[in-house]
Structure formats: C-alpha cells, structure tokens
C-alpha cells in the first residue's frame, strides 16, 4: 500500500490565519471588557433615594414603567430583547449591515423602565444604552425539523401596557393571546404561512437575550434632572435630519408660523386624541373625540385616570438615568460583582486569545519559511 504525500501547506496557512484572527478578536474584546470591569468595579453603588446628579452606579430590580415589550421568539414580557435567527430562508427582508454580519434575522428593542433598590426607585431612559443581558433562548431546529421547546413566536403586538390593576393583570395572564387575522408569524422566519414552522429545509438557530421585570440589574450612567434631557423621544425633528433645531432658518420658520397662528397651543389641539394621556394604550383619561361609527373605548375610573397621569407625568426636577454623549448607559444583568466577574472572565479569555494569536503567528512563519511545509 502506498501513501500519497499530503500537502499541508494551504490548510496550515488557513488554520494559522484563522487562529490569528480569532486570537486578536478575543484579545480586543477582552481588553475592552477589562476597561469596563475597571469602570464598574471602581464606581460605588449609590442608594437611589439620596442620589446626586452626575455619573452614578445603581443596582436594583427592574420595574415596569408605562409599557413592556413582548419578545419575538419567546413571547416573554420584558423591557429589553435582542433576538437573532440564523439560517432562515433567503426571502426574509433584512438590513444590509446585518446581512454582512451573517445574521438572517435580528431585532433589538428596549423601552423605558424603573429600577428599584431598598431606598426608592428611579426612571431609566435606555436610549443609546449598552446592554449586557443573559441569553434566555439558545436552541436550534431539531434533525427532524422539530422546533425547540422554548420557542413561542410572538403572535400579537410587540408592546403591552402596564398598570392594568390586579384583576386585569390576572385576566391578561390567563387569556389566550389571539393572533391578529393578518399576522403571519412565519414571515419573520422566512417561510410562508402555509408551511409548518419546520417546513423549510434549512435548520435555524434561535437566540434571544432578555431583561425582564423583576431581574436584578446594575446600571452605570448619568443621573440628571428629567428637564435636562434633550427631547428624549426625538419628537421634535425627524430622525436622521441634518437640520439642527436652532438652525436660523428653522427658528425663523417656526416664529413665522407662530405669528400666523399655524402652531397649535396644546398637544391635544395639535394631535387630537393622541394627545390624551393613556389613549395609545387603550386607557384614555378623558373621553376622546371619536367618529360616530367607531367603537367607543371604555373610560378609565378616576383612580385609573390619576394613576395614568402619575405614570406619564415626570416632574422636571426628578432625577432620571440616561445616556450622555460622552457616557452611554451601561445596563448589565445582576449585581455589580456579577457584572465585573463576567468581564474579568472575558478578559482572561482575551489573554488566552493573545497566546493563540502568537502561536498562530509562529506557526504561520514556520509554514511560510518551509519548516512545517509538508
């Protein structure tokens, strides 16, 4: 029997390059985590009741504010989710930047919430925050096409109102969610509604990370009076607009419109029913003006009305947590020591990555110079 000589050079070069790339990537991630671990570990945790404005770290439990989210893959009620499906069919409409990353479906979303410690609670505006959330679903389609047991595709709206009251909350919990007639959950999986979930011939990998009401979190960021937040909802100008709100032409146009009486005096006058607190979540605090043909919404009780007013009204001087241009919010699951420990673990992995990168570079050099060629 004769053995054919195998040329290991192309495979060796490929493996060495992969090792080099992975090692350097792990190192870069580890060094970033080292910095973040230092930042969290070096900041004392403040009590919310006696919080002072400025950079702070608070640790507590998440409480819902006005609304919560429903996650797309587990239908879990949460304040943040990041859902990914790899391996979905090609018909799916995805963003070009995600396509480059190799993700077939990607969605990340957050809503404002409160965090409570033993002394009090504070409102969090998570816009532009960095999240460190635990993965709550990480599973794939089975060999027989069976979907993972934890998968429960969202069949209703992505947002759920909170503060329904005890009875309503129990009823909502017991009620079976009804899919809207035109909702096709498989659209996000890239399949047609006529196919079963496992009807496609490609296996899918599902990943979802969530932070829910009741989870312990550590938040590092800036505490500032609500009145100092610069238009948190970006309601005043279109997203992506290059015009600054203090642009001379814009200011001139607004002044002209105001003089001509074209600008409404109140939100209700400008937006109609949408200006009534609670209208968007089915609990208006005042009777909306409706088309006579429309189904009238039941009005909330005076208690519900005052509760809704309280929920949506944030005093201008109340401290809130939000991102600053130079210091984005960091929202990490668990108590501070947990958050630090996770980052230190990744830092050690990064150092291992450096060793892998150096070893790969050595191997590559030897292959190229012929010492390990064949």
């Amino acid at each position, binding site marked *: 029997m004769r053995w054919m000589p195998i040329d290991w050079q192309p495979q060796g070069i490929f493996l060495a390059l992969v090792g080099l790339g992975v090692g350097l990537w792990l190192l870069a991630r580890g*060094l970033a985590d*080292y910095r973040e671990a*230092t930042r969290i570990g070096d900041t004392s945790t403040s009590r919310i*009741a*006696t919080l002072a404005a400025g950079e702070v770290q608070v640790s507590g439990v998440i409480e819902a504010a006005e609304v919560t989210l429903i996650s797309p893959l587990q239908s879990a009620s949460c304040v943040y989710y990041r859902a990914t499906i790899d391996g979905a069919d090609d018909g799916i409409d995805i963003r070009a930047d995600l396509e480059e990353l190799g993700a077939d479906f990607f969605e990340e979303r957050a809503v404002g919430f409160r965090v409570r410690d033993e002394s009090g609670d504070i409102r969090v505006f998570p816009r532009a925050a960095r999240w460190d959330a635990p993965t709550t679903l990480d599973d794939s389609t089975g060999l027989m096409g069976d979907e993972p047991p934890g998968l429960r595709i969202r069949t209703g709206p992505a947002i759920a109102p909170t503060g329904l009251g005890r009875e309503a909350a129990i009823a909502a919990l017991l009620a079976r969610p009804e899919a809207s007639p035109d909702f096709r959950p498989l659209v996000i999986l890239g399949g047609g509604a006529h196919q079963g979930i496992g009807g496609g011939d490609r296996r899918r990998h599902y990943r979802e990370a969530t932070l829910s009401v009741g989870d312990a979190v550590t938040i590092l960021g800036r505490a500032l009076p609500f009145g100092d937040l610069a238009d948190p909802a970006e309601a005043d100008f279109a997203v992506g607009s290059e015009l600054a709100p203090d642009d001379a032409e814009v200011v001139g146009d607004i002044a002209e419109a105001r003089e001509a009486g074209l600008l409404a005096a109140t939100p209700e006058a400008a937006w109609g029913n949408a200006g009534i607190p609670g209208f968007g979540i089915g609990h208006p605090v005042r009777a909306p003006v409706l088309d006579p043909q429309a189904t009238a919404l039941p009005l909330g009780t005076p208690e519900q009305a005052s509760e809704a007013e309280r929920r949506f009204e944030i005093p201008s001087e109340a401290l809130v947590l939000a991102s600053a241009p130079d210091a984005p919010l960091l929202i990490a699951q668990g108590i501070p020591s947990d958050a630090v420990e996770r980052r230190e673990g990744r830092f050690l992995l990064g150092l291992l990555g450096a060793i892998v*990168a150096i070893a790969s570079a050595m191997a590559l050099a030897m292959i190229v110079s012929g010492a390990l060629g064949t």
Partner: protein
Amino acid sequence: MNPQSVAAAFAVGLLLAIVLYIGVASYNAVMSLRQRIDKAWSNIDVVLKQRHDQLPALVSAVRGVMAFEQDVLTEVARARANYSPTEPIPDQAVHSDETTRAVRSLFAVVEAYPEIKSNTNVLDLQTQIERLESMIADRRELYNDQVYRYNTRITTLPTMLLAPLFGWQQRPFFAARPEELERPATDL
C-alpha cells in the same frame, strides 16, 4: 527579515501593546477614581452647608418655648459654629458627628413639648434636617466606599507600580481619626 523574526517581533509587539494598554487603563482608572472622590466629597459638602444654614431657623423656632432647655440649644449652636469647610476632612467628620448628636438631642427634647410638635414650621424644619442627616449618612458611606476603592487600587497590582511615579497618596476617609474616638474610661 525572515518570517520567524517577523513572528517574534509580532509576539513582542503584541505583549508590549497589552502591557501598555493595561498601564494606560490603570492610569485612567485612578484618575477617574480621584474625580469620583472629589465629586463624592462635593456632594457631602453641599449637604453639610445646607444643614449649617437650616439649624439657626430651627433653633430660633423652638427657643421661645424651650426656655428651660438652654443647654441643648447651646450645644447645637456650638456644634454648628465648629463647621469649617476648609479644615481637613477627618476634622470635619468629627464636627459633623457632634452636630448630628446635638441635633438628635434637640429632637429628643422636642418630643416633650406638645406645643412645639404641633407647630407646622418646626415640623417642616425637623423633616428637612432629618432628610439632610439621612443624606449626609448615605453620601458619607458613598464617599468612604469610593476612597476605599481608590486606596485599594493604588496599593494593589498593577496600579501600585504606577503610584510612586505619579505620587499617588492614600486619601482620608470621612471619619474621625482613631485617637479622636477614644473616650475616657467611666467607672460605673
């Protein structure tokens, strides 16, 4: 330059980059800690000043009714007069503790005067000062925790290697010095 030399240079360069990164990150971390300590102290200083400003109003509000409790009132006034924002932090801690004790004594005595307890002005002042006392306690804890983190960092690796280079010294806690906590023995 042969490939092995390039690989060796890469390895040395990578290790140097890691060391440099950790050095710069450690330096920045210490600078941030110093800023946080200064901020934490400023937050205490603001509340000490507020309490200093509130106490005369409280004393004058209760003075008329508490004519026979001059000792308590004098103690509050004396403790208040010791406040000096320019003295060292441990001394300020001693004087702050004295003021807290004097204020607590005053509140305890006020309990015995129903006519004062029903006075809204006094109740408001009492609530405000109690809130300030609570803030001082919380912010003191935060300041001391921040100082603890700083002192620990500059005395542990890798930052302790940089401390002599930059002259980093330990910061004082907002607490009385141990010798000032000693009390004369009491023979019961």
